[in-house]
């Protein structure tokens, strides 16, 4: 009888133990494989590895840029030196600094980018608000026309635009970009109008009704209530506009010919500056000696926007989601 009880207890104990172990095994399994595809450790590991590989490939050209920038001429000519230079040189950076006329060109680029982006934000928000909320005759027609402005390739209109700008006396000054931006035709303005349109459409109507009852005019309502509400959309539009103005090359290469030269044009002219004997078509020639300087110049051009991006990274990425572009 005693032995029977003992056996019973032992069985129960082992049963509990095996239950305990199976529970634990289940837990481990859950941790490793997970309930969802993304929960488990294995899935996460795979995800990290995949993303890291792609990210490395993705950023390789930038790494190349930085590494080339720091190489002296001997390393540039030496094929055995791939990534890490034998000695780090700052020569290329100082050469690029002078070749680009960096402070001057930076000022030009920054002035264009900041002023035109501000103008774009103001005008596109106004237009977007009118399209979303105010009664405008032939709204469908305006919608179509705004889409049309987005679709027309700049090459189609570049010649007439050149003539119009020269008639208006705007060439070779900031107004070549500022005047169109102030009239709602800045860089990718149609996209920004749509962003604002979507945003204002998603806001509750009651706000405006309340303000109207209190006797606010539409202009007052827009400036006092709607624009502050649209802060995140404004920021997204400003940042994108800023970057696109910063990087634009085609338009300034047509409209700005002397004196008033932004960074992108200076980069284009750099080869001639570095190699005065090489006149004419330098485009096709890859000169390994000036490569380092060119990379340094390219790096110096993208550095300010990257710094801004790092500081404002949160708004950039989440702002698009919050501003309701996609809906």
């Amino acid at each position, binding site marked *: 009888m005693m032995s029977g009880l003992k056996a019973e207890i032992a069985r129960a104990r082992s049963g509990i133990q095996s239950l305990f172990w199976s529970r634990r095994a289940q837990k481990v399994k859950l941790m490793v494989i997970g309930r*969802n*595809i*993304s929960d488990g450790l294995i899935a*996460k590991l795979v*995800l990290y590895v995949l993303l890291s590989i*792609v*990210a490395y*490939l*993705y*950023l*390789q*050209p930038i790494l190349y*840029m930085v590494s080339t920038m720091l190489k002296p001429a001997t390393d540039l000519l030496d094929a055995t030196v791939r990534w890490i230079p034998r000695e780090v040189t700052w020569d290329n950076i100082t050469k690029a600094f002078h070749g680009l006329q960096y402070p001057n060109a930076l000022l030009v680029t920054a002035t264009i980018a900041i002023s035109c982006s501000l103008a774009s934000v103001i*005008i596109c928000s*106004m*237009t977007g608000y*009118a*399209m979303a909320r*105010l*009664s*405008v*005759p032939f709204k469908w027609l305006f919608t179509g026309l705004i889409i049309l*402005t*987005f*679709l*027309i*390739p*700049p*090459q*189609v*209109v570049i*010649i*007439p*635009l050149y003539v119009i700008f020269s008639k208006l006396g705007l060439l070779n000054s900031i107004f070549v970009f500022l005047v*169109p931006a102030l*009239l*709602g*035709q800045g860089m990718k303005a149609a996209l920004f109008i749509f962003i604002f349109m979507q945003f204002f459409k998603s806001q509750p109507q009651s706000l405006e009704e309340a303000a109207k009852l209190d006797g606010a005019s*539409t202009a007052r309502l*827009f400036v006092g209530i709607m624009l502050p509400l649209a802060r995140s959309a404004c920021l997204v539009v400003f940042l994108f506009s800023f970057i*696109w103005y910063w*990087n*634009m*090359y085609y338009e300034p290469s047509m409209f700005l010919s002397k004196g008033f030269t932004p960074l*992108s044009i200076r*980069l*284009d002219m750099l080869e001639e500056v570095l190699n005065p004997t090489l006149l004419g078509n330098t*485009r096709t020639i*890859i000169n390994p000696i000036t490569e380092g300087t*060119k*990379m340094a110049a*390219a790096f110096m051009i*993208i550095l300010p926007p*990257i710094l801004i*991006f790092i500081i404002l*990274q949160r708004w950039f*990425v989440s702002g698009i*989601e919050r501003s309701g*572009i*996609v809906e």
Partner: protein
Amino acid sequence: MNAKSRKRAELKYHVSRYGTGLLFMLPWMIGFILFVLIPVSWSLFMAFNKVQVGGTFKYEWVGLRNFRDAFLKDNIFPVELITYFQQMLLMVPIIVLFALLISLMLNQKFPGRFIFRALFFLPVIFATGQVLSELFAQGVGDVPFLEQYNLEPLVKKYVGAQFTETVMDVLSRAVLILWYSGVQILIFIAGFQTIPASVYEAVRIDGATPWDSFWKITLPASMPFISLNMLYTIIDLFTFPLNPVLAHIKDNMFKANTGYGYASALAWIYFAFIFILIAIVLGVFGRKMKRGSVRA
């Protein structure tokens, strides 16, 4: 008297109804007329003329000759147009697919994903204009395994000799082309947020694997974003620095025997091609989008 006052009342009604709206639209309308309507119609007019520039413009009506010359006399333009078309057909799906895959991965919850999100957005900042063409000129941005495994004979075998060059061209700059997917990734990620989580929970309870739920839920729901991204990519590639057509148009602008008229005609042909491409995308995906919404 009566009719007059009624007219005035009508006008007053229209002003009070549409006045503010139109006032808000006014800057855009002026800009549209000045910087879009006039240039577009002007360039269309020039496309039918031989334009000579010498202080003032001299027009000589030639009808459709510019367009005919573009295909019959010009031995560069048609080839470049077709090449570019092939590149587009290859690049647009690559970019959109890549964006879809990356955004699917970035949509998972894992620590440090904001770093990866930032990384994949980074190229938007500098992937335009001169910096990019400088990198292109240096020949960076190739995928490393391409040379190691000598892919060219393989490509030739499977896609045929006439496309090999295009395919290799695109593949050799794969990374820089993928740089054009930054905005698309953002659009996809934002698009995934619009799918309610309860749907996923429901199918999981019904016993669907993640694989099923991707094909049955995520993909159909993101169909509109796929078409949006395709359109965005096509338009974004207008300004692609390697676009051979654009270079040709620019060259012809300043040639004495061809001039602005011919260059305008080329630009319009190019625009027409792009427009057809956009119409095809809208046609195919628009129907799908409608069907999807009916089913939902």
